[in-house]
């Protein structure tokens, strides 16, 4: 046993003293391996949203260009606008949280993450309330179907984002994060996802409620 361990230690040299486990993998791309996963995930999500937007604009531009939205349907633009402000604000708070931990400010991290979670939950609450009072259902024609599909798809993403933020909040309160980049990936990756969700909502809001 002893004779087998000595050559191994000699072969790895000083790296063995600091690095335990298998050797570091060769990095064949400029992108960090830890960011590649969320990048591929978000790209797949972009394609999913693109399919829903294609269906929306097909219905709106090709199928019924003159009657969109159908007569008698009034979307709550003001409420949705307020909801947009709420969600965009949450991106600023998660950005604040990440900047705080980069400066070793754990209190700022906890505050930023908690505010982000609360703003996200507020958005979801207002959206569910909107569904209850909007006056039509997903079965009321193509408009109802695509409206609930598109906004519901986004709402599901907000829900997933809230789950990620819940874990980030718990870990922040337990002091798991630090100022070095490798020590706050648990905030950075949900942050990227959260910004993506916000960007998608802005596009949904402009497409469905405004233009």
């Amino acid at each position, binding site marked *: 046993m002893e004779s087998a361990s000595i050559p191994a230690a000699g072969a790895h040299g000083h790296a063995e003293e600091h690095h335990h486990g298998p050797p570091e993998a060769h990095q064949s791309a400029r992108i960090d391996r830890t960011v590649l996963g969320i990048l591929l995930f978000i790209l797949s999500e972009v394609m999913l949203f693109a399919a829903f937007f294609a269906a929306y604009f097909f219905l709106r531009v090709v199928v019924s260009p003159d009657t969109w939205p159908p007569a008698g349907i009034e979307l709550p633009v003001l409420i949705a606008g307020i909801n947009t402000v709420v969600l965009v604000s949450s991106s600023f708070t998660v*950005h604040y949280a990440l900047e705080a931990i980069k400066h070793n400010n754990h209190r700022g991290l906890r505050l930023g993450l908690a505010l982000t979670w609360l703003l996200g939950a507020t958005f979801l609450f207002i959206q569910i309330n909107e569904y209850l009072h909007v006056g039509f259902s997903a079965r009321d024609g193509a408009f109802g179907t695509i409206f609930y599909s598109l906004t519901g798809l986004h709402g599901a993403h907000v829900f997933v984002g809230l789950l990620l933020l819940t874990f980030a909040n718990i870990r922040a309160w337990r002091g798991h994060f630090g100022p070095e980049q490798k020590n706050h990936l648990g905030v950075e990756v949900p*942050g990227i996802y959260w910004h993506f969700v916000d960007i998608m909502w802005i*596009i949904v809001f*402009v497409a469905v409620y405004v233009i």
Partner: protein
Amino acid sequence: MGNPLKSEVAAFRWLVAVVIGAVTVIIVAKLISSAAGLIWGMILIGIVSVYVIKGMIYMMGSPDDDDPEETEPELTSRDDRQA
């Protein structure tokens, strides 16, 4: 501004840019027509898509191809040199 998927800071910058772009789309839609707003929005999405795809191609490239003097692996700085 770089690739929006590179880091949280890059994604946040792009979020701010998207908010500004959305405001311009809303203004065009209200001042001219919904169709004009839609066309302007599609143009903006096209510009962003080109930016993101170029950034992705760059990020998937090998770090061995980097210029040793290159300190800022941003899409914009590389494009400037190529131009």
